[in-house]
């Protein structure tokens, strides 16, 4: 079957096309603009592009709803099924776009020329990275997915190195390249076996073919999936594949750190969800052994990530590395819903994932935004930069407290509710060990996150320089803090909305 790109197809690619167009336009603009003109205008342009893409995504959601009401399947295959427009993708795209928009906004207030001499490049390179992330969440084919993944990776390699005068930045980028490249190789190697066993790269077809292939090619299927798991574990920085993350996060400019922590991680997570839900469910047949093993492996990795991430953060004095390790733990939490059995009782894994992802986006970006402000005033990124923040900037301290509560999972915040929701799922499916680990690491995380609070409220602070707040960063911090609290008190609208949009059958099982 030969399919060509039609106009209607390109409508469904509109968000990505918009972003691509903005990338090119902004790149040209960057070249054309005289040196003395500030590059902030490119940042604002990128923001416009992100918002516009978001509008298109919303439009798609609306379209799908119309179809659903009309009784049709609420998804659309484009380009021979290699691209899917469904609500799984749409919701995640919204999350990525929103997160990127927040990051861009925050950096508009904080990124200075000294730090990032080629600021324009920073702003327009972030757009193709988002395209990559969107491709990862919206592909129906391993090939497209792989290309999306590489698009994201390669642009982020550059972004990490964007402070090109800085040795740290370059070193971080190099480490990231090596790790990312190896991870890609593993993923790709695994994909090749999957293709070999089923003869197709189309995810849904693989899912159909695998139960049949299970009898003859069990070992190869194991190999395929485990290679992919290893690759993704590296990408996601799940423990003990995480050691690169703190180095890279520390070396990268803070907005890029935020992007890596939130969007890159979220996109990889989306890819894992997509692949495993489409192909690894082996829905038919009594032989669930391989499937169980795969999901067990995911569970084990999630557990290890939670434990190692939080334990590693315990003694960490560098705030950025600490947040990187907290990101490791949070990746573990994000993986937990996927590792649980899909049963009658528990099939809301996507809501759990997306809700916690949203919470994670808010708290992580918010915390990093605060960190940017604070480290700029103290000149370093150690925890002690936060000393006495309560005296220097009480409102920022209050916002940071809310964000930390969310990170620590204290009521009533998004982080609390997200964890609660995931925990309930683990208990429902009887995976008490995961619940116990999740809870245990949460307790230890109190110590970790409260080390910020101790610095802010209980340590000196009268002598530290004051914190200069800029409007865009302030907006981001408060959006994140308020969002974290609001999501915690009223998770219902979000969850109702997600539940109304997402459908397991439509998004994963329908061809």
């Amino acid at each position, binding site marked *: 079957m030969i399919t060509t790109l039609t106009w209607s197809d390109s409508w469904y690619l509109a968000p990505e096309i918009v972003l691509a167009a903005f990338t090119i336009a902004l790149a040209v603009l960057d070249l054309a603009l005289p040196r003395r003109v500030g590059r902030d205008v490119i940042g604002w342009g990128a923001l416009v592009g992100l918002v516009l893409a978001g509008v298109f995504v919303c439009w798609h959601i609306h379209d799908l709803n119309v179809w659903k009401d009309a009784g049709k399947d609420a998804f659309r295959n484009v380009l021979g099924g290699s691209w899917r427009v469904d609500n799984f993708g749409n919701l995640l795209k919204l999350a990525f776009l929103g997160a990127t928009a927040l990051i861009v906004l925050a950096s508009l207030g904080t990124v200075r020329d000294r730090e990032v001499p080629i600021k324009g490049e920073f702003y327009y390179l972030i757009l193709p990275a988002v395209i990559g992330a969107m491709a990862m969440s919206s592909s129906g084919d391993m090939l497209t997915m792989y290309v999306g993944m590489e698009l994201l990776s390669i642009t982020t390699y550059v972004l990490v190195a964007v402070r090109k005068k800085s040795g740290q930045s370059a070193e971080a980028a190099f480490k990231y390249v090596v790790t990312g490249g190896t991870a890609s190789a593993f993923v790709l190697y695994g994909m090749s076996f999957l293709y070999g066993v089923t003869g197709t790269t189309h995810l849904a077809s693989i899912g159909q073919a695998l139960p049949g292939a299970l009898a003859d090619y069990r070992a190869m299927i194991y190999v395929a999936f485990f290679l992919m798991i290893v690759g993704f574990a590296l990408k996601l920085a799940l423990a003990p594949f995480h050691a690169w993350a703190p180095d890279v996060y520390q070396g990268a400019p803070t907005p890029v750190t935020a992007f890596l922590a939130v969007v890159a991680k979220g996109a990889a997570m989306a890819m894992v969800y997509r692949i495993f839900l489409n192909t690894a469910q082996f829905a038919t047949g009594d032989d669930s052994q391989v499937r169980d093993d795969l999901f067990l492996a995911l569970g084990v990795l999630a557990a290890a990530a939670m434990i190692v991430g939080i334990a590693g953060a315990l003694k960490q004095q560098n705030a950025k590395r600490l947040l990187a390790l907290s990101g490791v733990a949070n990746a573990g939490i994000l993986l937990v819903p996927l590792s649980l059995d*899909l*049963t*009658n*009782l*528990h*099939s*809301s*894994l*996507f*809501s759990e994932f997306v809700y916690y992802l949203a919470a994670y986006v808010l708290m992580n970006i918010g915390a990093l935004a605060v960190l940017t402000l604070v480290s700029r005033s103290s000149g370093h990124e150690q925890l002690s930069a936060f000393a006495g923040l*309560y005296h220097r900037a009480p409102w920022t301290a209050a916002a940071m407290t809310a964000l930390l*509560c969310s990170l620590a999972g*204290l*009521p*009533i915040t998004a982080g*609390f509710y997200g964890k*609660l*929701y995931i*925990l*309930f799922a683990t*208990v*429902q499916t*009887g995976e*008490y060990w995961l*619940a*116990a680990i999740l*809870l*245990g690491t*949460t*307790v*230890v995380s*109190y*110590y970790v996150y*409260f080390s910020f*609070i*101790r610095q802010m*409220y*209980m340590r000196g602070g009268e002598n530290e320089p004051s914190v200069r707040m800029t409007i865009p960063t302030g907006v981001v911090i408060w959006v994140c803090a308020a969002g974290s609290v609001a999501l915690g008190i*009223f*998770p*219902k609208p979000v*969850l*109702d909305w997600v*539940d109304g949009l*997402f*459908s*397991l*059958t439509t998004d994963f099982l329908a061809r």
Partner: protein
Amino acid sequence: MLEDIPVLSLIVWLPLLGAVVTLLMPKQNARLLRWTAIVFSVVPLVLGLLLFASYEPILGGGAYAEHGTWLSVPLNAEAWSASQGVTSYRLVFNYLLGIDGISLPLVLLTGIVSTMSALATVHIHKRWKTFYPLFLLLQTGMYGVFLARDVVLFFIFFELTLLPMFFLIGIWGYFGKEKAANRFLLYNGLGSAVMLLGFLILIATLGFSATQTAGGVELVYSGSYDTMLANLADPNAAANAGGAMFLSGNLRWAAFILLLIAFGIKLPFFPFHTWMLKVHTEAPPSVVMIHSGILLKMGVYGLIRFVALLFPGQIDSWAPVLATLGVINILYGAILACAQKEFKLVLAYSSISHMGIVLLGIASLNETGFEGAIYQAVSHGLISALLFLIVGSLYERTGTTRLDELGGLARSLPFTSGILLTAGLASLGLPGLSGFIGEFLSFLGLFDTWKWLTAIGVLGVLFAAVYVLRGVLAMIHGPMQEKWIGLKEARFIEALPMVALTALIVLLGVYPSLLTDLMQHGFDGLLKELQTRVGG
């Protein structure tokens, strides 16, 4: 009259309103802030007293209960709708507040101790504008814990007490405040994590209810305490649950033990007690008043409400374990209290010992014992609040509460010393003061079933005399050191709560029916269950 207003909600949320109000006040005006805090502590107390006055044990607190849905979030119903015609499958967190004979005494205790502690905040000398909002927020958490009838709501209020306490200890504490705050946070965090796991198991296995509607079945998971009780009592519940997982025997044990540990940490029982020592020594007095006076009682309340009342079978077979734990607590705490050189530590260990008596009361599994446990909780709350009030007042003057550095204070501070002695006597269970009644009822209750254990536990009463007298007399009697001669007697605002608490301790000791009548029907359900279990 009270039935017409959401009195329970008012009690819970008024302190929070107070917190907001104090946030809007000028930073430097400590008096204004303090009096605002006092007012917002007194009003819930008054409401609680009105409730107390109009509460009829025979009717229970049904008239005051408040039902509402706070959250109803979807669980994916696709798989269900295909197989069982389930149209709606949701996880519901309710806003359920209720009152009964078990919680009312503790609500009153919260009101009283909070008010007294608000008066005692004269010892706070810095950052008032941060202190009072946290202080009031803490109260909201505590009232919420005692009034919530939904496990998730309960948990949230429980956690809500953590954060303010962390700050209150960590900012306004003494020398080792940060360490103490950390310990408090981690230990209690661990406790609440364990509790949450237990609660989630309960929700997932007991909290379901299915409603048949015209469109199909509506399946709901909720944390409602009443739903759980109803499901427990319903012999067909497992069958009605359909595909839902019902609480199996093993899970029941798991949840029981999890909750036991969770509340045991709060109580605290041996060997989970070390965290509270630091809190007792390092936190500011008005905060320890609340901590020792109320927060520990959340453990008592939780043990009764969620461990005893929800798991009659388990508590029945574990009664000896609980009783043994109680005896260990009593003796261990008492003997260690005898060996301390710091008065605050004496009090801390004595709290452990006294909480052992609570365990005995619970382990007795009869009405007397439960009443004793609650009575002991209330009385210990008042007594330890009073003791720490005095400790704070003494520390303010002398800068130490070490036994070997003090002595003969009765000379320069006769009033404070007199109150201290009274409080000490109450603490060692002197009849005529409230401490005796709780001990007596607990021992009486347990004696019915575990005579030897009780007899050993009663030894704790003897040790109590030893450590209380050793501690108190070392401070107020004996030769006085030169440097304490010029000490000033308690100011009015310090004396007021001292007198009030003493009066209450005497009142409860002289006329215990005041409280025991309240609890009269609180345990009917459990006792019936236990009786059928034992009898059948």
